[in-house]
């Protein structure tokens, strides 16, 4: 029967069948929407919108936009290389006078200071000075107060910060900056973030690898034990899972301390102590311990679904124990390995408390810097640029992983 004919088929009450179907479907769809709506709204409100707001902060000049308008106008025709003219100095003086009255000068100074270290104090001095001045000439006053006002670089920073948007935070998140002639790398002694990313991925990768190496045999043991024994063993695996992260990390801190029980034992046995706390070793050890169940559980639950008869079949077909494991059992666990490792890797990328408590200064990860900028410096722009960069790299890795392994093949249980 053709489609046209089908369209005219009518139900008993004379309504075309297609319309009936659409009505029935609509009800079902509405129901489906109703079921996901609460969670969807929750995610939008608590996850997506903060994410967006924070990401906006990383490209906006919140502290300076609208407060340096006169200066921006005066600098519009400036070449960017030489000393700005008197008008520019006068405009900045006017902007600072108003900002000083509104008690906003400090914020401006702090923002300029990110890009031009040392600018904060210069701004404070000059703001105080121009507040007392009625007329110019401003250029001489600025230059005589601090020679830095003659530095075109400072003026370029002021010009950049006076606009609504800035690339500064994103550039600096990857150790770049706006130079006199385009984007350039920051000097080696100021470059930190690429190193931090590298370290973050290295630690996360190492922890993932270690949890896999330690977790796989245990998962295998659990999956092949009779249920009664497996349950008891499972409690031991889950116990750390049920303990608070902070408590476990603190426990590691106590254990690894220079005066801790491990070092006491070492002192007793071989007469010397080891530097364990505040090292990369401690970070990796504690993180591996915490992440172990995350890697293990997906592998275990996939292993549970592999019938023992598969290995038996392989054995009866002539494969030795190792070959049967490697060619028949192991390939079937790959979806679990993929899921467990991805979970641990992504969770490890965001670690914060553990490196902060048991790691040294060279073991701090991206999240520690995010927290540092959020809590210590109150530089939301930099914090969110760092976080967003990490998010983007993670998404790219996830995409690559999907291409390689296939997320649909992944099994969490």
């Amino acid at each position, binding site marked *: 029967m053709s489609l046209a004919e089908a369209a005219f088929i009518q139900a008993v009450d004379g309504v075309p069948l297609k319309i009936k179907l659409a009505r029935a479907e609509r009800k079902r769809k509405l129901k489906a929407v109703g079921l996901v709506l609460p969670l969807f709204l929750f995610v939008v409100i608590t996850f997506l919108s903060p994410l967006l707001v924070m990401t906006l902060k990383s490209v906006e000049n919140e502290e300076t936009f609208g407060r340096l308008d006169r200066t921006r106008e005066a600098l519009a025709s400036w070449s960017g290389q030489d000393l700005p003219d008197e008008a520019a100095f006068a405009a900045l003086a006017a902007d600072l006078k108003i900002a000083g009255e509104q008690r906003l000068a400090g914020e401006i100074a702090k923002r300029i200071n990110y890009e031009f270290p040392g600018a904060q104090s210069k701004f404070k001095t000059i703001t105080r000075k121009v507040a007392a001045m009625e007329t110019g000439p401003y250029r001489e006053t600025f230059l005589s107060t601090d020679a830095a006002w003659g530095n075109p670089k400072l003026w370029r920073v002021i010009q950049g910060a006076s606009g609504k948007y800035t690339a500064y935070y994103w550039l600096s998140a990857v150790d770049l900056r706006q130079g006199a002639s385009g984007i350039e790398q920051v000097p080696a002694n100021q470059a930190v973030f690429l190193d931090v990313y590298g370290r973050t991925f290295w630690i996360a990768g190492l922890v993932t690898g270690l949890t896999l190496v330690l977790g796989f045999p245990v998962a295998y043991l659990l999956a092949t034990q009779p249920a009664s024994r497996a349950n008891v063993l499972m409690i031991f695996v889950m116990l750390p899972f049920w303990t608070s992260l902070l408590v476990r990390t603190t426990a590691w801190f106590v254990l690894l301390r220079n005066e801790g029980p491990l070092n006491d034992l070492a002192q007793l046995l071989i007469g010397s102590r080891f530097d364990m706390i505040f090292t990369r070793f401690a970070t990796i050890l504690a993180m591996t311990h915490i992440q172990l169940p995350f890697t293990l559980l997906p592998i275990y639950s996939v292993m549970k679904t592999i*019938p023992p*008869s*598969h290995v*038996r*079949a*392989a*054995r*009866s*077909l*002539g*494969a*030795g*124990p190792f*070959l*049967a494991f490697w*060619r*028949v059992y192991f*390939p*079937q666990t790959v979806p679990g390995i993929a899921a467990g490792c991805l979970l641990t890797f992504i969770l490890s990328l965001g670690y914060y408390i553990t490196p902060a408590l048991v790691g040294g200064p060279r073991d701090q990860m991206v999240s520690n810097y995010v927290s540092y900028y959020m809590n210590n410096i109150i530089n939301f722009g930099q914090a969110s640029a760092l976080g967003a960069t990490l998010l983007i790299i993670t998404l790219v890795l996830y995409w690559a992983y999907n291409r390689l392994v296939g997320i649909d093949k992944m099994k969490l249980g």
Partner: protein
Amino acid sequence: MSTSERPGNRRGLAGKPGDFVEFIDIQKTYDGETLVVKNLNLSIRHGEFLTLLGPSGSGKTTSLMMLAGFEVPTQGRIELDGRRINDMAPHKRDIGMVFQNYALFPHMTVEENLAFPLQVRRMPRADIEQKVERALEMVQLSQMRKRRPAQLSGGQQQRVALARALVFDPKLILMDEPLGALDKQLREHMQIEIKHIHQKLDVTVVYVTHDQSEALTMSDRVAVFNDGVVQQLATPTDLYERPENAFVAQFIGESNKLRGVVSSQNGKECIVNVNGHGDVRAVPIRANGPGNKTTLSLRPERVRINPTDGVFTNQFDAQVEELIYLGDHTRARVSVLGTDDFVIKLPNAEGVPDLAPGSPIRIGWKPEDCRALDWS
């Protein structure tokens, strides 16, 4: 290795030359408390299709697993082609096995599944391809070679499993309820297909099932298991016609059970008093002489109704309790000799009288058809 070359021809009780597989005084316990297999003696001949038949939990799978090498006998000896194989690793036994749920490797295609046993034997690639091709043809699955097991129907998966167990030319194939997951029609089709393959190839098959009709259709001999003991090992005809104990009589086909005490017995016939309701003449198989209890077993289709007087030495008054029409025959449940679940099968042919529930009839049977077995 041929039969004549076998070293040390000392056999257990069950052993006779020509036997391919032997279970000799095998016992098996899993928990150290109960014997799952009690004193199993079983010889399987070269090229034979032998079925282990028995109710659930009777130790069939366990026996098969001991033969395959996945379970170790607690006691006794298993010999394969004259060699003791108790401690031989499963992969060295060269035994093809078909599992109940097929155990096809889900991450491999049909072709790869079939190539697996050849690859692990390090065969040259060309040989592998040729053998896989042949096996695929045998089970008519050449079209499906690139598919994964999940993309096949149950019957097709079953055939792949069969082909995989055969592809490396093992001399012995074990099948543990291989058709259990298939529907009735497909099962019957596969029974015949397996039977044909067995006839074509020179293999010995040990087959496990708890479906008695399957066992009777396919097997050269059937070993009836119960409670970890082989109750009877015989051809299908013998099992049905000449059951040696009450369990076999009950388990294979349908039979009427009458319990009584032997009042007299000679070599060919005994007379059994059924609870004071009457004397029945029967063949003494396991009857232990006058005064001992015995169970009489009688197939429903061997009973005649309203026989001419004097034709049968066993004739009794009975009353029809229930009639069930089954197309080719009618089942009549009658009460006779103090029981009311005595069943008679009446062919729906000419000359069979109309009956109605409640009507009194006379029934009779030959003493040869009635077997006096052990008390149960």
